């Protein structure tokens, strides 16, 4: 029904924006001083084999539009080109490194959701000294960049107290989870503060609304009013931060993975930039933008489920 049409329209819009993003990502290389070949090689000795590979990948002798179209076509076949530094397919590099990053982002996301929602809810409901403490702590968290959190957590819990490993990923899933705990915490800290403040503010807004008093006046227990009316109604506002949360998590993996030496795509992006491995940079940028937009799409599709006043098609709340 309505939902299908709305979903199709949003997917089409997302595809259009993704196309625009791919153009920006591909075009960025042409903004660089010098010709693309010299930029791509950037001082490396160009063996005939490398030059041929570059030519095959970027069709450097063809006009820009043709090159862009071919690059897109390759993307659609899952071909992200060849890494200049690693001399392998970028898709293979990604396949090796994406799982660690996704696990890290997932762990951080769980921390953000649990920590942010719980702290925000406690702050709004308890009030008083508890609320003030939460307000001050979250203000500090919101001012702490992920790389600062990474360095401090690493210094304290890994290097000084030796509770956690200082870096790397270890072998096996258990070890991996163990190694990713501190990075996930560093990644999540800022967002826990942000989400807690958003949740608290949204819940205080709802607490001030009359239907809460009405529910209490009808003998509905306070605990249930807080859960089913206040918290539930605040979720709509909380959901709108979903895109921001995921995009921040993805981008900050660059910093956190570098600080902890986690071999994910974040660290790969940092390495590729320092080594000017542009095909890899393009691929990772595109993946990050794509993931971010996919999350936004899910948020948009979920919103009417959380708030029946938002109808598919209008796309915005009237409340």
């Amino acid at each position, binding site marked *: 029904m309505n939902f299908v049409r709305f979903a199709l329209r949003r997917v089409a819009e997302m595809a259009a924006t993704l196309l625009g993003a791919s153009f*920006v990502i591909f075009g960025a290389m042409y903004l660089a001083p010098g010709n693309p070949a010299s930029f791509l090689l950037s001082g490396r000795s160009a063996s005939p084999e490398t030059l041929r590979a570059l030519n095959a990948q970027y069709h450097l002798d063809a006009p820009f539009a043709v090159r862009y179209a071919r690059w897109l076509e390759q993307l659609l076949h899952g071909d992200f080109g060849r890494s200049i530094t690693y001399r392998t397919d970028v898709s293979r590099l990604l396949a090796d490194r994406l799982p660690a990053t996704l696990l890290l982002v997932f762990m951080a996301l769980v921390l953000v959701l649990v920590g942010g929602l719980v702290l925000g809810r406690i702050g709004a409901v308890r009030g008083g000294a508890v609320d003030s403490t939460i307000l001050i702590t979250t203000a500090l968290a*919101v001012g702490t960049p992920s790389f*600062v959190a990474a360095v401090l957590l690493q210094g304290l819990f890994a290097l000084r107290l030796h509770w956690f490993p200082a870096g790397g990923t270890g072998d096996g899933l258990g070890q991996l989870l163990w190694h990713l705990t501190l990075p996930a915490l560093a990644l999540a800290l800022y967002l826990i503060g942000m989400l807690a403040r958003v949740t608290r503010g949204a819940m205080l807004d709802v607490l001030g609304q009359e239907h809460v008093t009405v529910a209490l006046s009808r003998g509905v227990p*306070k605990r249930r009013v807080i859960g089913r009316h206040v918290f539930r109604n605040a979720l709509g506002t909380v959901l709108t931060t979903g895109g921001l949360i995921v*995009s921040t998590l993805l981008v900050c993996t660059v910093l956190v993975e570098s600080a902890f030496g986690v071999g994910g795509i974040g660290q790969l992006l940092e390495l590729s930039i320092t080594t000017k491995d542009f095909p890899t940079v393009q691929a990772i940028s595109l993946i990050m933008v794509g993931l971010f937009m996919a999350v936004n799409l899910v948020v948009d599709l979920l919103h009417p489920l959380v708030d029946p006043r938002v109808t598919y098609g209008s796309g915005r709340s009237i409340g």
Partner: protein
Amino acid sequence: MTAVVPLRRPGFARIRTAGAPLYLLCLTAVTLLVLAALLAPWLVPADPNAVDLGNALAGPSVGHPFGIDASGRDTLSRLLVGARTSLLGPLGVVAFSTLTGVVVGALAGWRGGWLDSVLSRSTELVFAFPGMLLAILIVSVYGEGLMAPVLALAVAYLPYVSRLTRSLVLAERERPYVSASLVQGQSGFQVCLRHVLPNIAPVVLAQSTINFGYALIDLAGLSFLGLGVPALTPDWGRMVFDGQTAVQEGYPLSAILPCAAIVLTVVAFNVVGEHWADRVARRDR
């Protein structure tokens, strides 16, 4: 019969957020930071780039109140001089994004029509790029220098300002005084410039103050990665990166101090910006 019932419901009492003392404290902190950055060349006890390897990782002393980092440089001097880069970058981002954002947003909101839809579309495209990612992409193309990341972040922040301005202008345009001024023969441009923009300025400025903190975080992150700020220029983000060696050696001071500087600056700007936004919101109510 008389029944005294304690009826306090602590959970339902609205808590006053960020009281005035905290705001004043943060405003003072911001002022001191700006002063320190401006006066840094005269305040520094030592050359921030002078290397004294023999004293590397030395603790606080009379000549070096905050100690010496792993490369043998005076931490206090680097902090003070680093404040200049660390504050100048975000200032550029905020200034550029606010100016262009207000122009774009006001045009879209005031004129509407095709201009509005074109601007909204391009805004959506920029939204798809997290600011840091766009900056990383640009820096990877242009290499070192503060200009490229500042411009990239300004472009990434522009949609937030322009969207805010657009919605404010749209709301303001509906107010009776606008049509009253138009009826009195003032041109739309005049009304927009002399009434609408001054009226929405406090909200935009409050948002820009908060954006300053975010820009500082992003730029410090870039220089932590070794992007943007040239390697030898003192910068807080870079100092955190350099400090990692010191942390591993067990002398964390030269890493903790720039971390604290970043956190305190961002928190101070956030508190001041939120206080302003709060005040404006209360004025409008």
